[in-house]
């Protein structure tokens, strides 16, 4: 990653509030191309609000947001659409359209942006996207209600990948998965990043995910990013919450596992 390269996401002086409640105040953030960028923070520190602001679901009170070098705030819908198709979003519960099968869910963005691609090719595209996201061969014809939570998230990833995005937003991808499923999901994210050259913006609570796949991590607290860096860099900081987070019993356990895996490798 070249240091001088333009960041893929740049957030400057972001301010968000709901009524009297201040969520962000003067939040700055840069995400570099090709990295897996983790966002952590206690409950209520506005991780999801940050993501919603970047993808344009939440209008911030103040601040600048640039994605792919293009300003996102105050853009009209038509222009924003062209930026929007260059990213994919996985919501917490998968947010699949419940009246469509998994394959049809994946075809929705394709139909929306590239009408006229014949059905056969669309089916083929849906099939390999489903397979890429690690779902079994019968998943394509199923409705979301027939899938388990983990499968729904994988189907959500497949839909997020439908238009070959350069940037993938993931909101707590491993929440609610069993440890084996969560580890497999981490692996999937790594594979997709390496195979497709994605940049990943990831909100998580999962310490194992942070150790296993994140290149850099931003810590949200006190309405802003209080620290940003790799895990060793964060550990070196003297911030109460960061210390409690990474050096708490769960943090230590995750660190030990990560060390062991590195030794094995």
């Amino acid at each position, binding site marked *: 990653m070249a240091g001088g390269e333009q960041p893929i996401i740049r957030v400057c002086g972001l301010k968000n509030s709901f009524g009297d409640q201040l969520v962000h105040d003067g939040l700055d953030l840069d995400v570099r191309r090709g990295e897996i960028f983790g966002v952590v923070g206690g409950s209520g520190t506005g991780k999801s609000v940050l993501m919603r602001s970047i993808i344009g679901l939440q209008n911030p009170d103040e601040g600048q947001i640039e994605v792919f070098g293009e300003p996102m705030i105050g853009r009209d819908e038509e222009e924003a659409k062209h930026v929007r198709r260059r990213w994919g979003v996985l919501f917490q519960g998968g947010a699949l359209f*419940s009246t469509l099968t998994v394959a049809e869910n994946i075809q929705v963005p394709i139909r929306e942006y590239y009408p006229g691609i014949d059905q056969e090719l669309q089916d083929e595209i849906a099939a390999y996207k489903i397979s890429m996201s690690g779902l079994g061969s019968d998943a394509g014809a199923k409705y979301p209600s027939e899938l388990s939570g983990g499968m729904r998230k994988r189907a959500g990833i497949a839909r997020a990948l439908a238009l070959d995005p350069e940037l993938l937003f993931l909101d707590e991808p491993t929440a609610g998965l069993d440890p084996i499923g969560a580890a497999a999901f981490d692996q999937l994210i790594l594979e997709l990043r390496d195979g497709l050259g994605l940049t990943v913006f990831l909100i998580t609570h999962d310490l194992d995910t942070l150790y296993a796949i994140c290149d850099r991590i931003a810590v949200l607290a006190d309405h802003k990013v209080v620290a940003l860096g790799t895990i060793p860099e964060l550990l070196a900081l003297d911030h109460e919450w960061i210390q409690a987070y990474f050096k708490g019993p769960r943090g230590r356990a995750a660190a030990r596992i990560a060390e062991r895996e590195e030794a094995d490798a």
Partner: protein
Amino acid sequence: MTVTADFSRNVEEGRCVLKLSGNLTILRVRKLSEQLAEIDAEDLTVDLSEVERMDTVGAWLVHKLERDRGARIVGATKEQQQLIEHVTQADQPMKVKREYETPLIRVLGQVGASTRIVIGTLYGLLGFFGSLLISTGNIIRHPRRLRINAIAQQFEVVGVHALFIIGLMTFLVGIVIAQQGAVQLRQFGAEIYTINLIGRSAMKELGVLMTAIMVAGRSGSAFAAQLGSMKLSEEVDAMRTIGVSPMEALVFPRVAATVLLMPLLGFYAAVMVIIGGGIFCWLSLDIPPVTYVQRIREVVPMTDLYQTLVKAPVFGMIIATAGCYQGMQVKGNAEEVGLRTTTAVVQGIFLVIVLDAFFAVFFTSIGWT
């Protein structure tokens, strides 16, 4: 820079070489995919050295040439190679379509499924009613388990909050009946019988039926939605685990409140119909209120009121039971809550009207004409 994915073909050493150039992305593959299908040469070589950008859809096309026609790929950069490999790995047999059913089979299947649902619902409702009776028995034996507060709260929601809308609706119905009746009866010079029409239909049918429809729409649906969402959030299960019977704590207060309030609401509605009709008679037919009230007392027999008072609690029982039953049947997802709520209202109103017909025959045969 070319933005389209173009290709040129020439023959080198007996092999057909396709030289792709430009952007090999989803934007251009539709045309390309058709053009490639037209090439019938064997021994293909695909040269990617002039491709500027490639996404997975482009890689998929290249992979298909390799897979189906034994094409040889040359000139791919490392990233492109990686992308094609990634797509190749993802090429697994995959079912993307539901199995097709012929219309005949589908219709037959739907009829069968609906029949099963109807029978299952009737059976379930009966069972639900039975367990409601058992809970009622338990509450009678242990009066301390009676939740007075819950019942009082339902009184307010089912009854007090409905007063305005039921009153307004039946008042207007009264005016409509009076006006329509007067137009017809005027032809025989029998306008005065408008009062008979209003008084008797209001006391016997309109009041209680209108009330039942409104209560089914307001409260039956609310019961289904409330219990349904409690079922979804596992509140009902938590209740059971703690040892509280949902039947006693949730269903009984709702059913009891509806059963007790329906006669009151029904009577109130009948009176409102009569008032609405009376105002029309006064303003339009010049029948003074005193005469109107006196005529009403003469033509409406007491048995008409008894009919309303007998029917109302039964209707209330049906509406509340259907609402609570449907609510308790919710499982799975939030969509189910909406479906069950609709079913509760439809079922409630349907059963009320069917039963009303039976009541009409019954009351006639015992001489309450």
